[in-house]
């Protein structure tokens, strides 16, 4: 189906769950007012990013009543939003919820927690173990959280699991200033999202936050990429924005006819070779 998507390029407050819930709910209502059928938020939209020891203080269980309002709103608009999720055995995940028709339809727990350079996620958070596509009213969707997308296998698995739409929730720090037009990190992401869409004949809906935490900027630039890798809408760089874009079912159909790489992808060959590599590594 054709539908309108909103990418909420917001500026969460670090460790302020109530303020961020209000910010997210207001953006959801704006999305409803503007006729969006789906709204995507950044990674950790409800908490902010450089949480460190705040992680347990801002975590929510999926049954937490503070999520009730978002569940209610999801009867009118589908919502993908990032938060810290706590489980009943007190593990804390960097998770994305997909809410639709009044319920949490899917939870993705970030698998690849970066711990290099300025990142230190795995010190504070537990690692997710799954990449699973799921059915939504827009067809089959796969969710990635920021660093997940830098692992080719993650997008590949979701596409092989039938996803035709990839949502990527991001809190990407801007860095790498040089003579070029954009920041190094922004340029790299733009290549990645476009190439992923093109390789897998999937739409990519990328939502990145803005604002500063301890001097580190988040560069925004949320974008909607068609299944041919072309960007059809892009948000402002380094400023809050509310990006609206149309997702065109026909574009997906035409691309899958024109470039039937996913049809021809041989899962059996991949699986057999991966098993061989695993065996040769001594496992």
């Amino acid at each position, binding site marked *: 189906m054709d539908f309108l998507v909103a990418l909420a390029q917001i500026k969460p*407050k*670090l*460790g*302020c769950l109530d303020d961020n819930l209000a910010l997210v709910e207001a953006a959801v209502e704006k999305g409803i007012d503007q006729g969006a059928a789906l709204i995507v938020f950044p990674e950790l939209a409800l908490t902010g990013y*450089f*949480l*460190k*020891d*705040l992680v347990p203080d801002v975590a929510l269980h999926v049954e937490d009543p503070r999520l009730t309002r978002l569940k209610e709103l999801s009867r009118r608009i589908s919502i993908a939003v990032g938060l810290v999720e706590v489980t009943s055995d007190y593990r804390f995940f960097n998770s994305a919820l997909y809410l639709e028709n009044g319920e949490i339809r899917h939870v993705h727990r970030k698998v690849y927690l970066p711990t290099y350079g300025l990142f230190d996620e795995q010190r504070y958070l537990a690692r997710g173990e799954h990449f699973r596509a799921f059915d939504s009213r827009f067809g089959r969707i796969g969710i990635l959280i920021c660093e997940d997308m830098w692992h080719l296998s993650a997008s590949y698995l979701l596409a092989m699991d039938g996803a035709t739409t990839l949502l990527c929730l991001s809190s990407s720090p*801007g860095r790498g*200033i*040089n*003579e*070029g*037009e*954009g*920041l190094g990190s922004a340029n790299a992401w733009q290549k990645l999202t476009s190439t992923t869409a093109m390789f897998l004949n999937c739409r990519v809906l990328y939502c990145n936050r803005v*604002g*500063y*935490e*301890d*001097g580190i*900027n988040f560069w925004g630039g949320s974008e909607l990429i068609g299944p041919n890798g072309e960007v059809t809408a892009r948000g402002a*760089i*380094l400023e809050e924005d509310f990006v609206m874009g149309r997702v065109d079912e026909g574009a997906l159909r035409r691309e899958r006819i024109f470039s039937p790489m996913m049809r021809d992808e041989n899962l059996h060959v991949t699986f057999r070779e991966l098993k061989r590599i695993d065996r040769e590594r001594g496992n």
Partner: protein
Amino acid sequence: MGVLNVNTALLRKILVGFVRDEVTKVGVTKGVLGLSGGIDSALVAFIAAEALGPENVYAYTMPYRTSNPESEAHAKLVADQLGINYQVIEITPMVDAYFNLFPDANNMRRGNKMARERMTILYDHSAEVRGLVLGTSNKTELLLGYGTLHGDMASALNPIGDIYKSQVWELSEAMGVPRAVIDKKPSADLWAGQTDEQELGFTYRDADELLYRMVDQRMSRDELIAEGFDPHFIDVVHTKVQGSHFKRRLPVIAKVSHRTIDRDFRYSRDWGK
């Protein structure tokens, strides 16, 4: 010189946004800085005026009796061009009163005392106007340790601490810092005729080319030599970076509890902001 060139429009946007965001999120609207007449503080004044509005920027020139009068003239030039709040506060009486007790103190002690005297004045005025002290140390100085701990290195926020001196020059051109301030030789202005490059023994341009490869690109010593850098120069700069590292860290705390500040009690400074 290609590796150090930057997209000044983008850099300006990031640094102006940084000052605006990090100042206002703590609930104040004003910025305070020492305006020495040199390029670093001039650039910070330009960034702050754009971020907060000139009426919210408070600049202070704090000369000692041996300071070059040209420095104060250049500071005033910058303040007048921007229309920021500006005041001259002489530090001679305080500094001389102290060194009358220790007349044999050398230039280093005197320079450090002056830098710390200025720091106390800036923090006093930050309390008076309810503003944050903006740092004016660039990445080259910070890496070389060419500054006074708790003196000119003290600040609440530093917009230029991740850009090299060469990039300070480039951004200053783009933002319209007065030509006289850009063109003059960098000086700590602690005594007559002093220049940074004379004291350091090398030029900022050369140091920046080396530091960028050593720090940002993490090139090994062999790779740096292959790039054409003199091994002695590499060692001198490396020794300065390592030897001054204590200036870039908080004081070391003796650990006895389960949660020691900054070791296993870890929160961003923007906690709740």
